[in-house]
């Protein structure tokens, strides 16, 4: 691109012209309308950037059932006792009052792609010019034999933050002395690849203080997992003898639970446990299936714009997508939301489009002040979102670096939640 003073002035003139002219798609019914379904890292960010950068030219509606949103990221730190629950809760007040976003607390239950409408559980039918779906994940039925969503009060997943996180923490705190916390880890792909293992670290951190003879058992269908060497080193350093990881070679992929009996069967061997944290296989949030834009468990999208491969009027963000190389994370969803917002604005208000750039970093906390991270940058190709470059923390790093990494993650939390909620 050309970058000189003439281009600078030209841009200003073009922007003024856009402000003065009626917009193409919005002409028939006033302002163009965008509906965003889901108020997490993808949806809240997309709504905010659309409203902010279109400077009132786009009518943005955000549909999110909960009035108070708890971030999944840092919810493990709540379980570990390092954060309190209020510190990971956020409201939508600023998005409504400062950005003029129409925030509707309801469930989206139907999508008519031909009529371009979204139906809410409360009965309202809302028309859109562009729809952004950022519904996060749901669980695959029957993924863990013996478990379904009705079991979640006895065997919580705590993989959507809030009351599930509080329940799991309360269960861990109520464990008998020397009791067992078990985790059934999910198969790939799933939300937050290091999440289950940061969870184990934080559970161990809590138990070490309140119940040091307790045991942690992980049944895992995967032969290896995100940051595996870093977690294993950390578990050895901080929680020696407490954590047992059972991979697929030892039956970690052959698991059954009985919630009434609090029983976990691994390869036929039944163990009574005190807490059973079942994290089943995942799929795109249900609304993607309802809209008919999924292939398999996920909604395929183009990396250039985050548009559904099935319907160009729908953009999908975050965990619900299949897009290529990016992990399912809040950071990824936030990054994708900015690309989608730019693409939607360009269609609805004729604003400029620039090449899609994405990035992700996942921090995990192993113990107090022992933070690690992994991350990568990405670009869009016609086939997928493709990794460009990446990095990962190393085993054997000194305590000062680990502390700095943790402090960085705290700064990131403040940054991304401000980027999402204003």
């Amino acid at each position, binding site marked *: *691109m050309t*970058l*000189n*003073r003439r*281009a*600078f002035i030209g*841009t200003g003139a073009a*922007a003024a012209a856009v402000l003065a002219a009626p917009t193409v798609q919005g002409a028939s019914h006033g302002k163009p309308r965008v509906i965003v379904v889901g108020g997490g890292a993808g949806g809240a960010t997309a709504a905010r*950037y659309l409203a902010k*950068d279109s400077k009132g030219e786009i009518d943005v509606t955000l549909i999110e059932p909960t009035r108070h949103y708890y971030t999944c990221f840092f919810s493990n730190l709540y379980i570990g006792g390092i954060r309190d629950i209020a510190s990971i809760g956020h409201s939508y007040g600023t998005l409504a009052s400062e950005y003029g976003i129409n925030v509707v607390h309801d469930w989206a239950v139907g999508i008519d792609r031909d009529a371009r409408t979204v139906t809410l559980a409360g009965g309202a039918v809302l028309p859109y010019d562009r729809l952004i779906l950022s519904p996060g994940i749901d669980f695959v039925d029957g993924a863990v034999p013996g478990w379904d969503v009705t079991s979640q009060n006895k065997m919580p997943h705590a993989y959507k933050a809030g009351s599930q996180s509080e329940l799991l923490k309360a269960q861990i705190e109520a464990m008998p002395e020397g009791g067992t916390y078990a985790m059934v880890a999910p198969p790939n792909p799933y939300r937050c690849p290091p999440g289950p293992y940061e969870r184990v670290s934080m559970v161990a951190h809590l138990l070490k203080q309140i119940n040091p003879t307790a045991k942690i058992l992980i049944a895992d269908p995967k032969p290896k997992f995100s940051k595996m060497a870093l977690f294993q080193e950390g578990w050895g350093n901080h929680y020696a003898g407490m954590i047992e990881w059972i991979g697929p070679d030892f039956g970690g992929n052959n698991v059954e639970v009985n919630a009434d009996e609090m029983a976990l069967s691994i390869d036929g061997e039944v163990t009574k446990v005190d807490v059973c944290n079942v994290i089943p296989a995942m799929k795109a949030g249900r609304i993607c299936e309802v809209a008919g834009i999924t292939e398999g468990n996920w909604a395929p999208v183009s990396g250039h714009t985050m548009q559904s491969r099935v319907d160009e009027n729908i953009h999908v963000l975050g965990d619900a997508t299949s897009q290529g190389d990016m992990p399912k994370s809040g*950071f990824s969803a*936030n*990054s994708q939301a*900015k690309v989608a917002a*730019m693409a939607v604005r360009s269609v609805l208000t004729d*604003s*400029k489009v*620039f090449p899609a*750039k994405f*990035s992700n*970093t996942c921090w995990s906390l192993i113990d107090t002040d022992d933070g690690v*991270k992994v*991350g*990568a*940058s990405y*670009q869009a190709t016609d086939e997928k979102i493709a990794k*460009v*470059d*990446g*990095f990962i923390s190393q085993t054997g790093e000194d305590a000062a670096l680990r502390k*700095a990494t943790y*402090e*960085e*993650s*705290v*700064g*990131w939390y*403040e*940054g*991304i939640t*401000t*980027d999402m909620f204003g």
Partner: protein
Amino acid sequence: MRNNIPLREANTLGGVYRGPSRQDGGGSILKMFARRPLAAVFLFLGGIAHAEEIGDAERGEKIFRECAGCHEVGQGAKNRIGPQLNGIFGRKAASVGDDFFYSKGLQRAANDGLLWDLEHLDAYLENPKALVSGTRMSFRGLKDPQDRHDVLAYLRRFSDNPANIPEAEPTQLPAEVELPPEILAIVGDPEYGEYLASECQTCHQRDGSDQGIPAITRWPVEDFEIAMHAYKKKIRPHPVMQMMAGRLTDEEIATLAAYFKDLE
């Protein structure tokens, strides 16, 4: 006059400003000089001590290199990422002049009466955010009291009064990366800047606050570009920033520098 200054500082201890309590609960000059009884004796008995008795200024000059990425001191020192530090002793906080943009946190502390005397400079260097929450100074602090005293002894040389500033070049470090004028002359497209900057703002806050990740707003354009090119060439060590800068073109770096310079 020069010899009286340390005494004046001693007399201003426990002055108007009370910052947030420090983690170690410290703050008294007695505690601060506990490891240097000799200097303390000089300070309290008659004000005959030379200003440099605070610590070892020669050693402090070396430690100051950590600070010199952002701060200049000496003849002709200018405001850069941080304010210039001539005359810092006894200066009211956030008062270096109109051409430096202070954080709201530091402005608030200044309104509450924060004065840069020995005690408060020592507390600030130990843990900037503990003294001034919301400061944009991205520095974890000098935990060793000796290191702080030595740096302060060095800075004290530039603080007696303007006429006494040693005639040395300001402490600007040689740039980590030499940028040719044609790169520095690039002017970015602000609309592109807004899009590119959105990627930075997942971590770096738009309002310039720093809660674990450095503030990047209001930097001089040249300093911003040098920093990004230093990451790009992997001269600066941070892996996330090396990755982010690594795929930015010269134009994109210039565009970002211009964008963040003017953010409110």
